């Protein structure tokens, strides 16, 4: 969206009582809604002149029916004025800055002329956001300063907040009368000295301030006379704004606003009756205050210092402010975010047996959602069959050529089917193969919404292949996802061409696979392609069959089949690849035959998938992903692959070695501390002596952990499933194994050893000012055996920091990304390869400076490799 025109300012104004009366379709007199017959009472709160919400009735103001009548405002004449609570601060400022006797502005003459000149020159523009009081910040500061030295307020240029700080002038310059202190008690009470000002007094006072002086105060008297902030005629919104709902029992349930308005009218009537009967002033003032309460809560039922008005059930009423404010308010709930039709949402669960471009849709959802089908001479028989169908693939609605919509029911279906003509549209239930969009929030990148094909299934959850899990960042611990059904051919084609899962295998961000097998699939691939892996003929047949391969190759190991041979059946015949694996061996593929090496995460997830994508395209990579993952899982299942405590148990000898490592580290630290205390420690360049010590200690302790890592790796060895997974990149790391079976290691906060706590020591279990390893968070125990209480506490300190950091990082980077996206959202790569925004303004002459699409760039390796090179000065 290009910004063609800018809003220079918005002017808010107050309604005068005359304006309210002019706007009003009717003066409301009866504090009630419907009579016994359920008919709207004349002059009541749902009077038919305020609009109609019942079908069949006509509006008495405009003659329109339910939908055509927009609704009309009414008004209530309050017998006694009431302060508008949302404006009480403005009123307070005005009362403070005008004389309580002559109602002229309280300013020294000299300063007034300054302000007057400013108004004339247009430097102080009356009327704007803050109810007329506007200014630049600089002006406000200047005004405040000068006010201070002269002890007088200049309000015209002081924003409301600061105006209150300005000292009060003791004597009016105009009438020479002393001023009592005006005070304000939230939400709407004003006092002059000790005497309370009645709203009518306030109104008279404000009405007396001359227009010119209001201008000096920053008001625009044409649009906002301050006395209009005291309500004498209360505007009543149309019934369309506060519709009543009819319950199943037939009872009517009124909107909260209507309830509130009834309250206001009741009290208003009682007040009137009491005044007319000549009741004592005390009773009248009590009722008046009650009226004020009801009006206040009508505007905002969360006003500070007053109890919220409640429903009979005890639920606080939702009045005007509550309708708009906050997350559930009109703006954030209904305007910024809307609900859409043709969408479904439910919990997701995994299904490795469906293709990556499919989504398992529960029957319940498929029966509810529809797709419009154009009836033609060629499909009319099929359409009739859908209409007449008894069960699942059914047509639910028919849109006839005359534009009328007919629901297909048991009674009507025969007739509808008989009268079906080409050119109509039938809406049939969702079927296998239909195009849908699948989405998981937060939708942070374009691959958070992809096109899937429907696969209708029993059960109540959406099913998705585990391989599409990474782009959605989905897991199955209760995650829910949304599904949208495109309704037009154009939308479907666009989704199929641009958003299909198989087309998104390579991420547009870094050019590597993002739809990729993980965890057990990688373990499976490694297991399948290990030297030792062999299968019998029967197993080989099963493995190939599960991968949809019907051709059994010649056995390569006598009677048996190597895992590599079977895996090779999945590879394209023209695939050649020679890479070094994470395990240090060479993986070689020649003409689609895996000759040597075992697959690990990088080779499988990236190299193979990317290569197949670039060589043979999306469908090839889809079938490869589908069948290879199934084969890998089946293969590893035949063998069995699991982890238990024994995988993290080291031998006695290693335990001893570990103890030696820990005590050696401790000793070294103690030695350093000694050196530090004797001042024999050599200072590192740019460091203080203390910093040198810390640095050296950290080095020793991390060396200790590295040493234990080697012991662990040696002890547990490559036939340990936990270590295998860590090494091939399937799950976990060597560090996890170290921490579980040998030593948790040094804990750190802000990259330093733990120091905070009881001043001279982190915990009082240690000597004061101790610098030793144990006193500052060195955890030599492992998780399997358990931590000492002190170690546990230190570990929690370190753990807390990383927890806080992730929380802060996600929040901050999320907002940062949102701002970037908003700034860049309408930039498009044009056909001349330039990048422009929607106004046609050039941003880049070639996309990215090199016109490279990261998704395709992998195809030509050289380009990719060059990207990594560092920028160096050339001479």
């Amino acid at each position, binding site marked *: 969206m290009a910004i063609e025109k800018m809003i220079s300012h918005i002017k808010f104004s107050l309604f005068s009582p005359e304006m309210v009366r002019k706007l009003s379709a009717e003066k409301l007199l009866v504090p009630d809604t419907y009579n016994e017959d359920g008919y709207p009472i004349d002059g009541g709160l749902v009077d038919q002149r305020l609009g109609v919400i019942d079908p069949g009735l006509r509006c008495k103001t405009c003659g329109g029916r339910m939908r055509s009548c927009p609704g009309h405002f009414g008004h209530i004449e309050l017998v006694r004025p009431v302060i508008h609570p949302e404006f009480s601060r403005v009123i307070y400022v005005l009362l403070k800055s005008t004389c309580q006797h002559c109602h002229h502005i309280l300013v020294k003459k000299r300063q007034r002329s300054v302000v007057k000149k400013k108004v004339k020159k247009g430097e102080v523009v009356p009327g704007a956001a803050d109810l007329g009081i506007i200014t630049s910040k600089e002006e406000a500061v200047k005004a405040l300063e000068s006010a201070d030295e002269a002890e007088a307020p200049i309000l015209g240029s002081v924003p409301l907040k600061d105006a209150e700080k300005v000292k009060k002038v003791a004597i009016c310059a105009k009438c020479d009368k002393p001023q009592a202190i005006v005070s304000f008690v939230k939400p709407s009470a004003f006092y002059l000295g000790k005497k309370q000002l009645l709203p009518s007094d306030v109104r008279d006072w404000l009405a007396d301030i001359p227009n010119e002086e209001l201008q000096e105060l920053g008001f625009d008297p044409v649009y906002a006379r301050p006395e209009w902030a005291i309500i004498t005629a209360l505007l009543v919104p149309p019934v369309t704004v506060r519709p009543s709902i009819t319950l199943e029992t037939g009872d009517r349930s009124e909107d909260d606003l209507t309830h509130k308005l009834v309250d206001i009218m009741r009290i208003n009537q009682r007040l009137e009756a009491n005044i007319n009967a000549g009741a004592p002033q005390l009773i009248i003032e009590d009722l008046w205050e009650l009226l004020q309460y009801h009006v206040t809560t009508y505007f905002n039922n969360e006003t500070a210092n007053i109890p919220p008005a409640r429903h009979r059930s005890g639920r606080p009423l939702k009045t005007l402010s509550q309708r708009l404010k906050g997350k559930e308010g009109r703006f954030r709930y209904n305007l910024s975010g809307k609900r859409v039709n043709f969408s479904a949402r439910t919990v997701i669960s995994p299904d490795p047996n469906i293709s990556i471009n499919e989504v398992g849709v529960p029957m319940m959802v498929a029966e509810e959602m529809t797709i419009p089908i154009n009836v033609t001479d060629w499909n009319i028989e099929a359409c009739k069959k859908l209409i007449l169908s008894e069960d699942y693939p059914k047509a639910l609605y028919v849109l006839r050529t005359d534009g009328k919509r007919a629901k297909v029911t048991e009674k009507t279906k025969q007739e509808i089917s008989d009268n079906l003509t080409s050119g109509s549209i039938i809406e049939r239930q969702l079927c296998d193969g239909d195009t849908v969009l699948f989405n998981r929030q937060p939708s942070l990148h374009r691959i958070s919404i992809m096109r899937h094909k429907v696969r209708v299934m029993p059960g109540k959850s959406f099913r998705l292949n585990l391989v599409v899990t990474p782009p959605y960042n989905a897991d199955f611990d209760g995650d829910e996802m949304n599904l949208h059904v495109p309704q037009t051919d154009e939308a479907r084609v666009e989704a199929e061409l641009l958003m299909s899962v198989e087309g998104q295998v390579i991420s547009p961000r870094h050019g590597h696979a993002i739809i990729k097998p993980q965890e057990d699939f990688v373990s499976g691939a490694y297991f399948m392609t290990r030297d030792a892996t062999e299968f019998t003929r029967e197993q080989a047949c099963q493995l190939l069959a599960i991968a949809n391969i019907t051709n059994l190759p010649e056995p390569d190991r006598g009677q048996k089949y190597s895992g590599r041979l079977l895996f090779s059946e999945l590879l394209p015949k023209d695939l050649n690849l020679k890479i070094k694996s994470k395990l240090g061996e060479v993986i070689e593929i020649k003409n689609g035959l895996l000759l040597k090496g075992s697959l690990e995460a990088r080779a499988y997830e990236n190299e193979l998938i990317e290569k197949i994508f670039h060589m043979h395209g999306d469908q090839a990579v889809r079938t490869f992903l589908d069948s290879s993952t199934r084969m890998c899982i089946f293969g590893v299942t035949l063998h069995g692959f699991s982890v238990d405590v024994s995988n993290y148990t080291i031998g006695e000898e290693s335990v001893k070695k570990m103890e030696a490592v820990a005590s050696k580290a401790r000793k070294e630290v103690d030695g350093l501390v000694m050196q530090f205390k004797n001042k024999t420690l050599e200072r590192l360049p740019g460091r203080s002596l203390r910093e040198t010590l810390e640095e050296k200690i950290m080095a020793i302790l991390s060396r200790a952990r590295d040493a234990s890592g080697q012991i662990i790796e040696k002890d547990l060895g490559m036939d340990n499933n936990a270590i295998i997974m860590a090494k091939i990149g399937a799950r976990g790391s060597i560090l996890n194994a170290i921490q579980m079976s040998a030593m948790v290691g040094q804990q750190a906060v802000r990259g330093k050893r733990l120091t905070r706590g009881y001043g001279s020591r982190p915990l009082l279990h240690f000597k004061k000012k101790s610098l030793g390893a144990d006193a500052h968070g060195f955890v030599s125990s492992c998780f399997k055996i358990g931590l000492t209480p002190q170690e546990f506490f230190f570990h929690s300190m370190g753990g807390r920091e990383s927890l806080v950091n992730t929380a802060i990082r996600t929040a901050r980077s999320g907002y940062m990304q949102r701002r970037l996206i908003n700034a860049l959202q309408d930039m498009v790569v044009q056909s001349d390869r330039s990048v422009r925004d929607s106004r046609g303004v*050039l941003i880049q002459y070639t996309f990215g400076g090199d016109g490279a699409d990261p998704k395709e760039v992998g195809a030509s390796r050289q380009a990719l490799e060059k990207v990594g090179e560092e920028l160096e000065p050339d001479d």
Partner: protein
Amino acid sequence: MLGEKKHIDHFLVPLHEILPKEEAEKVMVFYKSPLTAFPKINDSDPIVKQIGAQVGDMIKITRKDATCENVYYRVVYEK
């Protein structure tokens, strides 16, 4: 201080050239855009002062990136 040193000599500052009027015309035709649609550069920019470009001139910038060399055009505006 650094006043004597020419900015243009720094390796991070790519080559800036003033485009002759006819050349600039060609660029505008190629991109089918008026001068106002082109990216801007202030006349107060050190490199603009250095090469002596005037307000309204189009500057051609030749950048060497990690992947390849590319050209960029900017129009001088008064600050």
